[in-house]
Protein backbone atom coordinates (compact mmCIF):
# COMPACT_ATOMS: atom_id res chain seq x y z
CA UNK A 1 0.00 0.00 0.00
CA UNK A 2 2.92 2.38 0.53
CA UNK A 3 4.26 4.64 -2.22
CA UNK A 4 7.76 4.49 -3.67
CA UNK A 5 10.09 7.40 -3.01
CA UNK A 6 9.71 8.28 -6.68
CA UNK A 7 5.97 8.48 -6.43
CA UNK A 8 6.28 10.56 -3.29
CA UNK A 9 8.63 12.89 -5.13
CA UNK A 10 5.65 14.05 -7.17
CA UNK A 11 3.81 15.15 -4.07
CA UNK A 12 4.32 18.44 -2.26
CA UNK A 13 3.52 18.95 1.38
CA UNK A 14 3.41 22.23 3.27
CA UNK A 15 4.27 21.98 6.96
CA UNK A 16 4.35 24.52 9.75
CA UNK A 17 3.26 25.36 13.27
CA UNK A 18 0.19 27.53 13.30
CA UNK A 19 -0.52 30.73 15.19
CA UNK A 20 1.66 32.08 17.98
CA UNK A 21 3.04 28.62 18.63
CA UNK A 22 6.80 28.15 18.91
CA UNK A 23 6.91 24.37 19.33
CA UNK A 24 9.16 23.62 16.40
CA UNK A 25 10.84 20.40 17.46
CA UNK A 26 8.19 17.85 16.49
CA UNK A 27 7.32 19.74 13.35
CA UNK A 28 10.97 19.88 12.30
CA UNK A 29 11.52 16.19 12.95
CA UNK A 30 8.35 15.40 11.02
CA UNK A 31 9.38 17.59 8.09
CA UNK A 32 12.84 16.03 7.99
CA UNK A 33 11.34 12.55 8.09
CA UNK A 34 8.87 13.25 5.28
CA UNK A 35 11.64 14.66 3.15
CA UNK A 36 13.79 11.64 3.81
CA UNK A 37 10.94 9.38 2.68
CA UNK A 38 10.82 11.19 -0.63
CA UNK A 39 8.14 13.82 -0.29
CA UNK A 40 8.75 17.39 -1.40
CA UNK A 41 8.40 19.39 1.80
CA UNK A 42 7.90 23.13 2.15
CA UNK A 43 8.61 23.78 5.81
CA UNK A 44 7.32 27.09 7.12
CA UNK A 45 8.57 26.58 10.64
CA UNK A 46 7.14 27.88 13.89
CA UNK A 47 4.78 30.83 14.43
CA UNK A 48 3.12 30.63 11.05
CA UNK A 49 -0.15 32.50 10.40
CA UNK A 50 -2.91 30.51 8.72
CA UNK A 51 -2.66 32.73 5.65
CA UNK A 52 0.98 31.82 5.12
CA UNK A 53 0.14 28.14 4.90
CA UNK A 54 -2.37 28.84 2.19
CA UNK A 55 -0.10 31.20 0.32
CA UNK A 56 2.65 28.61 0.30
CA UNK A 57 0.26 25.88 -0.78
CA UNK A 58 -0.87 27.93 -3.75
CA UNK A 59 2.65 28.91 -4.72
CA UNK A 60 3.92 25.34 -4.64
CA UNK A 61 0.72 23.68 -5.85
CA UNK A 62 0.84 21.55 -2.77
CA UNK A 63 -1.08 18.33 -2.36
CA UNK A 64 -1.49 18.55 1.37
CA UNK A 65 -1.02 20.92 4.28
CA UNK A 66 0.20 19.50 7.57
CA UNK A 67 -0.61 21.87 10.40
CA UNK A 68 1.08 21.43 13.74
CA UNK A 69 -0.39 22.91 16.87
CA UNK A 70 1.02 22.09 20.25
CA UNK A 71 0.39 24.97 22.58
CA UNK A 72 -3.31 24.44 23.17
CA UNK A 73 -4.73 27.36 21.24
CA UNK A 74 -5.02 25.44 17.98
CA UNK A 75 -8.75 25.30 18.38
CA UNK A 76 -8.85 29.08 18.00
CA UNK A 77 -6.12 29.29 15.36
CA UNK A 78 -7.62 26.61 13.10
CA UNK A 79 -11.15 28.00 12.95
CA UNK A 80 -12.14 28.58 9.34
CA UNK A 81 -8.94 27.07 7.92
CA UNK A 82 -10.85 24.90 5.43
CA UNK A 83 -13.00 27.86 4.40
CA UNK A 84 -9.91 29.93 3.71
CA UNK A 85 -8.58 27.09 1.57
CA UNK A 86 -11.79 26.92 -0.40
CA UNK A 87 -11.79 30.68 -0.88
CA UNK A 88 -8.26 30.42 -2.19
CA UNK A 89 -9.30 27.74 -4.67
CA UNK A 90 -7.78 24.83 -2.75
CA UNK A 91 -11.01 22.82 -2.51
CA UNK A 92 -9.35 19.45 -2.81
CA UNK A 93 -6.26 19.94 -0.74
CA UNK A 94 -5.72 17.34 1.97
CA UNK A 95 -5.58 18.88 5.43
CA UNK A 96 -3.89 17.17 8.38
CA UNK A 97 -3.51 18.57 11.83
CA UNK A 98 -1.54 17.12 14.70
CA UNK A 99 -0.01 17.80 18.10
CA UNK A 100 -1.63 18.82 21.38
CA UNK A 101 -4.70 20.21 19.74
CA UNK A 102 -6.67 21.57 22.66
CA UNK A 103 -6.05 23.02 26.10
CA UNK A 104 -5.69 20.25 28.66
CA UNK A 105 -6.09 16.50 28.62
CA UNK A 106 -9.38 15.92 26.85
CA UNK A 107 -11.00 12.85 25.34
CA UNK A 108 -9.33 12.23 21.99
CA UNK A 109 -12.58 11.23 20.32
CA UNK A 110 -14.09 14.62 21.10
CA UNK A 111 -11.03 16.47 19.93
CA UNK A 112 -10.83 14.53 16.70
CA UNK A 113 -14.49 15.16 15.99
CA UNK A 114 -14.06 18.88 16.56
CA UNK A 115 -11.22 19.09 14.04
CA UNK A 116 -12.99 16.89 11.54
CA UNK A 117 -15.89 19.26 11.78
CA UNK A 118 -13.53 22.15 11.07
CA UNK A 119 -12.73 20.44 7.78
CA UNK A 120 -9.47 18.62 8.49
CA UNK A 121 -9.24 15.28 6.75
CA UNK A 122 -7.34 13.78 9.64
CA UNK A 123 -6.30 14.82 13.11
CA UNK A 124 -3.45 13.13 14.96
CA UNK A 125 -3.20 12.75 18.73
CA UNK A 126 -0.24 13.58 20.96
CA UNK A 127 2.52 11.05 20.59
CA UNK A 128 2.07 10.42 16.88
CA UNK A 129 5.26 9.03 15.35
CA UNK A 130 6.46 9.86 11.89
CA UNK A 131 6.12 6.41 10.26
CA UNK A 132 2.39 6.48 10.97
CA UNK A 133 2.10 9.85 9.28
CA UNK A 134 3.89 8.51 6.21
CA UNK A 135 1.52 5.54 6.07
CA UNK A 136 -1.51 7.80 6.15
CA UNK A 137 -0.15 10.21 3.58
CA UNK A 138 0.67 7.36 1.21
CA UNK A 139 -2.83 6.07 1.58
CA UNK A 140 -4.61 9.42 1.22
CA UNK A 141 -2.46 10.78 -1.61
CA UNK A 142 -1.91 7.71 -3.71
CA UNK A 143 -4.59 8.92 -6.13
CA UNK A 144 -2.52 12.02 -6.84
CA UNK A 145 0.87 10.36 -7.06
CA UNK A 146 0.22 8.68 -10.38
CA UNK A 147 1.54 5.21 -11.28
CA UNK A 148 0.71 2.03 -9.37
CA UNK A 149 1.32 1.89 -5.65
CA UNK A 150 4.32 -0.24 -4.67
Amino acid at each position, binding site marked *: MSLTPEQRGKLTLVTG*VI*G*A*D*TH*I*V*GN*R*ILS*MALEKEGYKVVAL*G*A*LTPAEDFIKAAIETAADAILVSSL*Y*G*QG*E*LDCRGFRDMCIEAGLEDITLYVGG*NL*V*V*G*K*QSWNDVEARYREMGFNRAFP*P*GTRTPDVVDMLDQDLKGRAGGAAA
Partner: protein
Amino acid sequence: MAGHPQLDPDGLPFSADRIPDDIFDEMRARNLARWPTGAEIDLDEAAAYHLAMPKHKQLGWVMRRADEEGRCLTQPRGGFGTLELQKELMTCLDKDGHADIVPTTTDSYTRNEQWENAANGIEESKKAGRSMLNGYPMVNYGPKVTRQLVEAIDKPAIVLSGTSMPRLTSEVGFAAGYSGYLGSGLAYTASYTKEVTIEQGIRNYQYLDRLAARYQDLGVELHRRQPGFLTGTNIPPSIAILTCIIDALLAAGQGVKNYGLELGQTLHLVQDAAAIRMARELTQEYLQRLGHDDIFTPVTSLHWMGAWPYDDAQCEALVAYGGTLAAIGGAVSVTTKSSHEAFGIPTPEANAAGLRTTRMAVYLARHIRLDDMPEFKTECNMIAREVRPVMDKILEMGDGDVAIGTIRACEAGVMDIPWSPSNHMKSRVMPARDADGYLRIFDCGEMPIPKDVMDYHHDKLRERAARDNLPFDHELAVSSVYELSENLETLIPFPWAAE
Protein backbone atom coordinates in the same frame (compact mmCIF):
# COMPACT_ATOMS: atom_id res chain seq x y z
CA MET B 1 22.01 45.12 10.65
CA ALA B 2 22.55 42.59 13.38
CA GLY B 3 25.98 42.69 14.90
CA HIS B 4 26.38 46.42 14.74
CA PRO B 5 25.34 49.09 17.19
CA GLN B 6 22.15 50.63 15.94
CA LEU B 7 19.44 52.98 17.05
CA ASP B 8 16.27 51.21 18.05
CA PRO B 9 12.80 52.74 17.96
CA ASP B 10 13.47 54.13 21.40
CA GLY B 11 16.30 56.16 19.99
CA LEU B 12 19.00 54.39 21.95
CA PRO B 13 22.20 52.94 20.60
CA PHE B 14 22.18 49.22 21.21
CA SER B 15 24.49 48.27 24.06
CA ALA B 16 24.63 46.76 27.50
CA ASP B 17 24.63 50.17 29.11
CA ARG B 18 22.00 51.21 31.56
CA ILE B 19 19.04 52.93 29.92
CA PRO B 20 19.16 56.56 30.98
CA ASP B 21 16.35 57.67 33.24
CA ASP B 22 14.84 60.26 30.94
CA ILE B 23 14.76 57.95 27.96
CA PHE B 24 13.31 55.21 30.11
CA ASP B 25 10.52 57.52 31.23
CA GLU B 26 9.64 58.18 27.62
CA MET B 27 9.80 54.50 26.78
CA ARG B 28 7.44 53.75 29.65
CA ALA B 29 4.94 56.39 28.59
CA ARG B 30 4.83 55.02 25.05
CA ASN B 31 4.54 51.50 26.32
CA LEU B 32 1.71 52.08 28.78
CA ALA B 33 -0.30 53.87 26.13
CA ARG B 34 -0.53 50.73 24.02
CA TRP B 35 -3.52 49.23 25.82
CA PRO B 36 -6.13 50.82 28.05
CA THR B 37 -5.12 49.02 31.23
CA GLY B 38 -1.69 50.63 30.99
CA ALA B 39 -3.29 53.76 32.34
CA GLU B 40 -3.96 52.05 35.67
CA ILE B 41 -0.26 51.90 36.47
CA ASP B 42 1.38 54.26 38.94
CA LEU B 43 4.85 53.18 40.00
CA ASP B 44 4.83 54.80 43.42
CA GLU B 45 1.45 53.39 44.28
CA ALA B 46 2.55 49.97 43.07
CA ALA B 47 5.76 50.10 45.11
CA ALA B 48 3.76 51.03 48.20
CA TYR B 49 1.48 48.06 47.51
CA HIS B 50 4.48 45.73 47.43
CA LEU B 51 5.98 47.22 50.57
CA ALA B 52 2.71 46.69 52.40
CA MET B 53 2.75 42.97 51.64
CA PRO B 54 4.15 40.63 54.29
CA LYS B 55 7.74 39.55 53.58
CA HIS B 56 6.69 35.98 52.90
CA LYS B 57 4.70 37.15 49.89
CA GLN B 58 7.72 38.94 48.40
CA LEU B 59 9.67 36.59 46.20
CA GLY B 60 12.91 38.53 46.35
CA TRP B 61 12.99 38.10 50.11
CA VAL B 62 11.73 34.52 49.97
CA MET B 63 14.44 33.42 47.54
CA ARG B 64 17.13 34.95 49.71
CA ARG B 65 15.79 33.28 52.83
CA ALA B 66 15.42 29.92 51.13
CA ASP B 67 18.99 30.15 49.95
CA GLU B 68 20.28 31.03 53.42
CA GLU B 69 18.35 28.17 54.97
CA GLY B 70 19.34 25.62 52.33
CA ARG B 71 15.76 25.01 51.24
CA CYS B 72 14.40 23.88 47.91
CA LEU B 73 11.08 25.64 47.30
CA THR B 74 8.42 24.31 44.95
CA GLN B 75 6.69 26.21 42.19
CA PRO B 76 4.33 24.99 39.48
CA ARG B 77 3.28 26.63 36.25
CA GLY B 78 -0.32 27.51 35.59
CA GLY B 79 -2.60 29.81 33.70
CA PHE B 80 -6.22 29.76 32.57
CA GLY B 81 -8.10 32.14 30.34
CA THR B 82 -10.37 33.90 32.83
CA LEU B 83 -9.95 35.60 36.20
CA GLU B 84 -12.32 33.16 37.86
CA LEU B 85 -10.56 30.06 36.58
CA GLN B 86 -7.20 31.57 37.41
CA LYS B 87 -8.23 32.39 40.96
CA GLU B 88 -9.46 28.86 41.51
CA LEU B 89 -6.23 27.51 40.08
CA MET B 90 -3.96 29.65 42.22
CA THR B 91 -5.89 28.88 45.37
CA CYS B 92 -5.64 25.20 44.61
CA LEU B 93 -1.91 25.38 43.94
CA ASP B 94 -1.38 27.31 47.17
CA LYS B 95 -3.60 25.23 49.44
CA ASP B 96 -3.77 21.74 47.91
CA GLY B 97 -0.40 21.85 46.21
CA HIS B 98 1.50 23.50 49.08
CA ALA B 99 3.29 25.55 46.42
CA ASP B 100 5.87 27.88 47.97
CA ILE B 101 5.66 30.17 44.94
CA VAL B 102 2.42 30.58 43.01
CA PRO B 103 2.56 31.29 39.27
CA THR B 104 0.50 33.02 36.70
CA THR B 105 1.31 31.84 33.21
CA THR B 106 0.07 34.17 30.50
CA ASP B 107 -1.55 32.93 27.31
CA SER B 108 0.31 32.88 24.00
CA TYR B 109 -1.62 35.78 22.49
CA THR B 110 -0.63 37.99 25.39
CA ARG B 111 2.93 36.83 24.98
CA ASN B 112 2.83 37.94 21.40
CA GLU B 113 1.06 41.21 22.26
CA GLN B 114 -2.03 40.13 20.34
CA TRP B 115 -4.38 41.56 22.95
CA GLU B 116 -7.36 41.65 20.61
CA ASN B 117 -7.02 37.91 20.11
CA ALA B 118 -6.68 37.48 23.84
CA ALA B 119 -9.89 39.46 24.40
CA ASN B 120 -11.62 37.12 22.01
CA GLY B 121 -10.10 34.14 23.87
CA ILE B 122 -11.59 35.39 27.14
CA GLU B 123 -15.03 35.55 25.54
CA GLU B 124 -14.66 32.15 23.92
CA SER B 125 -13.54 30.67 27.23
CA LYS B 126 -16.55 32.09 29.01
CA LYS B 127 -18.82 30.75 26.30
CA ALA B 128 -17.24 27.31 26.24
CA GLY B 129 -17.12 27.08 30.03
CA ARG B 130 -13.50 25.94 29.79
CA SER B 131 -10.26 27.71 29.08
CA MET B 132 -9.64 28.25 25.39
CA LEU B 133 -6.44 30.15 26.17
CA ASN B 134 -3.28 28.49 27.38
CA GLY B 135 -2.78 31.09 30.08
CA TYR B 136 -4.11 34.16 31.84
CA PRO B 137 -4.48 37.30 29.68
CA MET B 138 -2.94 39.61 32.23
CA VAL B 139 -2.81 42.76 30.13
CA ASN B 140 -6.44 42.52 29.20
CA TYR B 141 -7.54 42.20 32.81
CA GLY B 142 -5.07 44.87 33.91
CA PRO B 143 -3.30 45.34 37.24
CA LYS B 144 -6.21 46.43 39.42
CA VAL B 145 -8.32 43.38 38.70
CA THR B 146 -5.32 41.09 38.72
CA ARG B 147 -4.48 42.08 42.28
CA GLN B 148 -7.39 39.85 43.26
CA LEU B 149 -5.22 36.92 42.29
CA VAL B 150 -2.26 38.02 44.36
CA GLU B 151 -4.61 38.58 47.27
CA ALA B 152 -6.22 35.18 46.92
CA ILE B 153 -2.99 33.43 47.94
CA ASP B 154 -0.65 33.58 50.91
CA LYS B 155 2.58 33.00 49.00
CA PRO B 156 4.66 35.11 46.65
CA ALA B 157 3.40 35.25 43.07
CA ILE B 158 5.46 35.08 39.89
CA VAL B 159 4.62 35.94 36.28
CA LEU B 160 5.53 33.31 33.70
CA SER B 161 5.32 34.71 30.22
CA GLY B 162 7.52 33.09 27.63
CA THR B 163 8.01 35.86 25.12
CA SER B 164 10.51 38.35 23.87
CA MET B 165 7.95 41.12 24.22
CA PRO B 166 7.43 41.53 27.94
CA ARG B 167 7.21 45.31 28.19
CA LEU B 168 3.56 45.76 28.94
CA THR B 169 2.99 42.45 30.68
CA SER B 170 5.78 43.19 33.14
CA GLU B 171 4.38 46.63 33.89
CA VAL B 172 0.99 45.09 34.58
CA GLY B 173 2.44 42.18 36.54
CA PHE B 174 4.57 44.22 38.89
CA ALA B 175 1.80 46.76 39.39
CA ALA B 176 -0.55 43.90 40.23
CA GLY B 177 1.72 42.82 43.06
CA TYR B 178 3.67 40.00 41.43
CA SER B 179 7.12 40.02 42.99
CA GLY B 180 8.73 37.65 40.51
CA TYR B 181 9.05 37.69 36.75
CA LEU B 182 10.56 35.02 34.55
CA GLY B 183 12.10 35.79 31.19
CA SER B 184 15.17 37.20 29.53
CA GLY B 185 16.35 38.70 26.31
CA LEU B 186 18.63 36.11 24.85
CA ALA B 187 17.00 32.98 26.21
CA TYR B 188 13.41 33.68 25.29
CA THR B 189 14.11 35.30 21.97
CA ALA B 190 16.19 32.35 20.89
CA SER B 191 13.64 29.77 21.98
CA TYR B 192 10.21 31.40 21.66
CA THR B 193 10.33 33.47 18.51
CA LYS B 194 11.07 33.14 14.83
CA GLU B 195 11.51 36.63 13.44
CA VAL B 196 12.19 38.85 16.42
CA THR B 197 15.85 39.84 16.36
CA ILE B 198 18.04 39.13 19.33
CA GLU B 199 18.60 42.90 19.61
CA GLN B 200 14.89 43.53 19.94
CA GLY B 201 14.55 40.78 22.50
CA ILE B 202 17.46 42.02 24.55
CA ARG B 203 16.24 45.59 24.43
CA ASN B 204 12.76 44.54 25.53
CA TYR B 205 14.21 42.76 28.53
CA GLN B 206 16.50 45.67 29.30
CA TYR B 207 13.27 47.60 29.66
CA LEU B 208 11.89 45.01 32.02
CA ASP B 209 15.09 44.85 34.04
CA ARG B 210 15.30 48.62 34.20
CA LEU B 211 11.73 48.60 35.49
CA ALA B 212 12.64 46.07 38.18
CA ALA B 213 15.57 48.29 39.15
CA ARG B 214 13.18 51.24 39.48
CA TYR B 215 11.23 49.23 42.03
CA GLN B 216 14.52 48.46 43.74
CA ASP B 217 15.18 52.19 43.98
CA LEU B 218 11.80 52.49 45.67
CA GLY B 219 12.79 49.86 48.22
CA VAL B 220 11.09 46.88 46.58
CA GLU B 221 13.42 44.03 45.72
CA LEU B 222 11.71 42.07 43.00
CA HIS B 223 12.95 38.67 41.88
CA ARG B 224 13.91 38.59 38.24
CA ARG B 225 14.62 35.25 36.68
CA GLN B 226 16.23 33.85 33.59
CA PRO B 227 14.82 30.84 31.69
CA GLY B 228 17.97 28.90 30.87
CA PHE B 229 15.86 25.92 29.84
CA LEU B 230 15.53 27.49 26.35
CA THR B 231 13.82 25.10 23.93
CA GLY B 232 13.66 22.54 26.70
CA THR B 233 15.00 20.03 24.25
CA ASN B 234 18.17 18.37 25.48
CA ILE B 235 19.97 21.57 26.39
CA PRO B 236 23.48 20.69 27.61
CA PRO B 237 24.33 22.44 30.90
CA SER B 238 27.07 24.57 29.36
CA ILE B 239 24.72 26.13 26.82
CA ALA B 240 22.10 26.90 29.42
CA ILE B 241 24.74 28.40 31.65
CA LEU B 242 26.08 30.58 28.85
CA THR B 243 22.65 32.12 28.46
CA CYS B 244 22.42 32.49 32.23
CA ILE B 245 25.66 34.44 32.29
CA ILE B 246 24.78 36.64 29.33
CA ASP B 247 21.30 37.48 30.54
CA ALA B 248 22.53 38.02 34.11
CA LEU B 249 25.17 40.45 32.86
CA LEU B 250 22.52 42.28 30.87
CA ALA B 251 20.19 42.46 33.88
CA ALA B 252 22.96 43.57 36.20
CA GLY B 253 23.69 46.29 33.68
CA GLN B 254 20.20 47.65 34.23
CA GLY B 255 20.52 47.54 38.00
CA VAL B 256 18.84 44.26 38.92
CA LYS B 257 20.10 42.75 42.20
CA ASN B 258 18.01 39.62 42.66
CA TYR B 259 18.33 37.45 39.58
CA GLY B 260 17.47 33.77 39.47
CA LEU B 261 18.97 31.28 37.04
CA GLU B 262 16.80 28.49 35.70
CA LEU B 263 18.10 25.20 34.40
CA GLY B 264 16.06 22.45 32.80
CA GLN B 265 16.99 19.09 34.25
CA THR B 266 19.03 16.67 32.19
CA LEU B 267 17.54 13.97 34.44
CA HIS B 268 21.01 12.82 35.39
CA LEU B 269 21.73 13.08 39.10
CA VAL B 270 25.38 13.96 38.73
CA GLN B 271 25.10 16.16 35.66
CA ASP B 272 22.25 18.15 37.14
CA ALA B 273 24.05 18.71 40.41
CA ALA B 274 27.10 19.85 38.49
CA ALA B 275 25.00 22.15 36.31
CA ILE B 276 23.33 23.77 39.32
CA ARG B 277 26.65 24.29 41.03
CA MET B 278 28.39 25.68 37.99
CA ALA B 279 25.52 27.91 36.87
CA ARG B 280 25.86 29.90 40.02
CA GLU B 281 29.63 29.76 40.21
CA LEU B 282 30.31 30.75 36.61
CA THR B 283 27.63 33.43 36.58
CA GLN B 284 29.16 34.97 39.68
CA GLU B 285 32.60 34.68 38.13
CA TYR B 286 31.59 36.75 35.12
CA LEU B 287 29.40 39.15 37.09
CA GLN B 288 32.34 39.90 39.31
CA ARG B 289 34.73 40.10 36.43
CA LEU B 290 32.48 42.82 35.01
CA GLY B 291 32.28 44.62 38.32
CA HIS B 292 28.95 43.37 39.64
CA ASP B 293 29.70 41.96 43.05
CA ASP B 294 26.35 42.27 44.79
CA ILE B 295 24.01 40.27 42.61
CA PHE B 296 22.12 37.41 44.21
CA THR B 297 21.82 34.54 41.71
CA PRO B 298 19.96 31.54 43.16
CA VAL B 299 19.40 28.58 40.86
CA THR B 300 16.02 27.06 40.03
CA SER B 301 15.90 23.53 38.66
CA LEU B 302 13.10 22.59 36.28
CA HIS B 303 11.39 19.26 35.91
CA TRP B 304 12.24 17.63 32.58
CA MET B 305 11.50 20.14 29.84
CA GLY B 306 11.59 17.76 26.88
CA ALA B 307 8.95 15.34 25.67
CA TRP B 308 7.22 13.36 28.43
CA PRO B 309 5.93 9.80 28.39
CA TYR B 310 2.27 9.14 27.69
CA ASP B 311 1.78 6.93 30.75
CA ASP B 312 0.83 8.59 34.04
CA ALA B 313 2.80 6.06 36.05
CA GLN B 314 5.97 6.73 34.09
CA CYS B 315 5.40 10.45 34.52
CA GLU B 316 5.25 10.06 38.28
CA ALA B 317 8.86 8.94 38.22
CA LEU B 318 9.91 12.05 36.30
CA VAL B 319 7.97 14.25 38.70
CA ALA B 320 9.43 12.66 41.80
CA TYR B 321 12.95 12.44 40.44
CA GLY B 322 12.64 16.09 39.50
CA GLY B 323 12.30 16.91 43.18
CA THR B 324 15.21 14.63 44.07
CA LEU B 325 17.50 16.16 41.47
CA ALA B 326 16.68 19.73 42.46
CA ALA B 327 17.12 19.15 46.17
CA ILE B 328 20.26 17.02 45.99
CA GLY B 329 21.65 19.40 43.41
CA GLY B 330 21.20 22.27 45.83
CA ALA B 331 18.72 24.30 43.79
CA VAL B 332 16.89 26.99 45.74
CA SER B 333 13.65 26.14 44.01
CA VAL B 334 12.18 23.59 41.66
CA THR B 335 9.59 24.23 38.98
CA THR B 336 7.21 21.32 38.65
CA LYS B 337 5.18 19.51 36.03
CA SER B 338 2.52 16.85 36.33
CA SER B 339 1.49 13.48 34.99
CA HIS B 340 -0.63 15.28 32.35
CA GLU B 341 2.42 16.86 30.74
CA ALA B 342 2.45 14.97 27.45
CA PHE B 343 -1.24 15.60 26.87
CA GLY B 344 -2.05 19.12 27.84
CA ILE B 345 -2.17 21.82 30.43
CA PRO B 346 -2.90 20.01 33.69
CA THR B 347 -6.06 20.37 35.72
CA PRO B 348 -5.55 22.21 39.02
CA GLU B 349 -5.77 18.87 40.81
CA ALA B 350 -3.13 17.15 38.67
CA ASN B 351 -0.93 20.21 38.99
CA ALA B 352 -1.31 20.19 42.78
CA ALA B 353 -0.53 16.48 42.90
CA GLY B 354 2.67 17.06 40.93
CA LEU B 355 3.63 19.67 43.49
CA ARG B 356 3.02 17.35 46.42
CA THR B 357 4.94 14.47 44.88
CA THR B 358 7.83 16.82 44.23
CA ARG B 359 7.65 18.24 47.73
CA MET B 360 7.80 14.80 49.25
CA ALA B 361 10.77 13.98 47.05
CA VAL B 362 12.47 17.14 48.24
CA TYR B 363 11.86 16.02 51.81
CA LEU B 364 13.30 12.59 51.08
CA ALA B 365 16.43 14.09 49.59
CA ARG B 366 17.37 15.12 53.13
CA HIS B 367 20.68 16.98 53.11
CA ILE B 368 22.51 14.83 50.64
CA ARG B 369 25.09 16.60 48.48
CA LEU B 370 27.40 15.12 45.87
CA ASP B 371 30.22 17.61 46.38
CA ASP B 372 32.86 15.06 47.28
CA MET B 373 32.06 12.66 44.48
CA PRO B 374 34.82 12.48 41.88
CA GLU B 375 32.34 12.09 39.01
CA PHE B 376 30.64 15.31 40.13
CA LYS B 377 33.93 17.16 40.09
CA THR B 378 34.72 15.86 36.62
CA GLU B 379 31.42 17.15 35.28
CA CYS B 380 31.85 20.53 36.96
CA ASN B 381 35.20 20.79 35.32
CA MET B 382 33.83 19.81 31.89
CA ILE B 383 31.14 22.46 32.15
CA ALA B 384 33.63 25.16 33.06
CA ARG B 385 35.88 24.11 30.19
CA GLU B 386 32.98 24.49 27.76
CA VAL B 387 31.59 27.73 29.12
CA ARG B 388 34.70 29.86 29.58
CA PRO B 389 36.12 29.76 26.04
CA VAL B 390 32.73 30.60 24.55
CA MET B 391 31.93 33.31 27.07
CA ASP B 392 35.34 34.87 26.71
CA LYS B 393 34.94 34.88 22.95
CA ILE B 394 31.53 36.54 23.24
CA LEU B 395 32.91 39.31 25.40
CA GLU B 396 35.80 39.68 23.04
CA MET B 397 33.47 39.93 20.05
CA GLY B 398 31.59 42.75 21.76
CA ASP B 399 34.75 44.55 22.71
CA GLY B 400 33.66 44.16 26.29
CA ASP B 401 29.97 44.97 25.65
CA VAL B 402 28.03 41.80 26.34
CA ALA B 403 24.94 42.95 24.43
CA ILE B 404 26.85 43.61 21.26
CA GLY B 405 29.03 40.55 21.73
CA THR B 406 25.95 38.38 22.06
CA ILE B 407 24.42 39.62 18.81
CA ARG B 408 27.63 39.04 16.93
CA ALA B 409 28.15 35.66 18.56
CA CYS B 410 24.66 34.47 17.68
CA GLU B 411 25.08 35.65 14.13
CA ALA B 412 28.35 33.75 13.87
CA GLY B 413 27.09 30.67 15.67
CA VAL B 414 29.67 31.19 18.40
CA MET B 415 26.71 31.30 20.74
CA ASP B 416 24.25 28.67 19.64
CA ILE B 417 21.15 26.86 20.82
CA PRO B 418 19.75 23.47 19.84
CA TRP B 419 16.36 23.17 18.15
CA SER B 420 15.75 26.91 18.04
CA PRO B 421 12.77 28.23 16.04
CA SER B 422 14.56 31.57 15.58
CA ASN B 423 15.81 32.76 12.23
CA HIS B 424 18.55 34.55 14.11
CA MET B 425 20.18 31.50 15.62
CA LYS B 426 22.25 29.05 13.63
CA SER B 427 20.90 26.15 15.67
CA ARG B 428 23.71 23.98 14.44
CA VAL B 429 24.70 22.74 17.87
CA MET B 430 23.25 19.27 18.38
CA PRO B 431 23.01 17.48 21.70
CA ALA B 432 22.48 13.78 22.25
CA ARG B 433 22.41 11.45 25.19
CA ASP B 434 25.29 9.13 25.91
CA ALA B 435 25.28 5.55 27.15
CA ASP B 436 25.38 6.64 30.80
CA GLY B 437 22.51 9.08 30.42
CA TYR B 438 24.54 12.26 30.30
CA LEU B 439 23.59 14.90 27.75
CA ARG B 440 26.56 15.38 25.44
CA ILE B 441 27.25 17.56 22.44
CA PHE B 442 27.27 15.66 19.19
CA ASP B 443 27.97 18.68 17.03
CA CYS B 444 29.06 22.00 18.49
CA GLY B 445 28.60 23.92 15.25
CA GLU B 446 30.69 27.06 15.39
CA MET B 447 30.93 27.19 19.16
CA PRO B 448 34.59 27.45 20.20
CA ILE B 449 34.61 24.46 22.51
CA PRO B 450 38.13 23.04 22.93
CA LYS B 451 38.95 20.02 20.84
CA ASP B 452 39.81 17.72 23.73
CA VAL B 453 36.48 18.54 25.35
CA MET B 454 34.62 17.70 22.15
CA ASP B 455 36.63 14.49 21.88
CA TYR B 456 35.35 13.55 25.31
CA HIS B 457 31.75 14.17 24.17
CA HIS B 458 32.30 12.19 21.02
CA ASP B 459 33.86 9.25 22.81
CA LYS B 460 30.89 9.06 25.11
CA LEU B 461 28.44 9.27 22.23
CA ARG B 462 30.31 6.63 20.25
CA GLU B 463 29.83 4.29 23.21
CA ARG B 464 26.12 4.90 22.98
CA ALA B 465 26.01 4.44 19.21
CA ALA B 466 27.79 1.14 19.67
CA ARG B 467 25.44 0.01 22.44
CA ASP B 468 22.31 0.96 20.51
CA ASN B 469 23.66 -0.26 17.22
CA LEU B 470 23.17 3.15 15.59
CA PRO B 471 25.44 4.99 13.19
CA PHE B 472 27.35 7.89 14.72
CA ASP B 473 25.18 10.59 13.15
CA HIS B 474 22.37 13.07 13.73
CA GLU B 475 19.95 10.23 14.40
CA LEU B 476 21.57 10.07 17.85
CA ALA B 477 20.17 13.55 18.47
CA VAL B 478 16.69 12.84 17.10
CA SER B 479 16.29 9.62 19.08
CA SER B 480 17.42 11.54 22.15
CA VAL B 481 14.49 13.92 21.66
CA TYR B 482 12.07 11.02 21.84
CA GLU B 483 13.91 8.98 24.44
CA LEU B 484 12.03 9.86 27.59
CA SER B 485 8.65 9.80 25.91
CA GLU B 486 9.11 6.19 24.90
CA ASN B 487 7.09 3.51 26.63
CA LEU B 488 8.65 1.10 29.10
CA GLU B 489 8.56 -1.75 26.64
CA THR B 490 11.06 0.20 24.57
CA LEU B 491 13.12 1.74 27.34
CA ILE B 492 13.63 -1.27 29.55
CA PRO B 493 12.03 -4.47 28.30
CA PHE B 494 12.10 -7.75 30.20
CA PRO B 495 15.40 -8.76 28.77
CA TRP B 496 15.31 -12.47 28.27
CA ALA B 497 11.83 -13.36 27.09
CA ALA B 498 13.11 -14.33 23.66
CA GLU B 499 15.98 -16.50 24.87
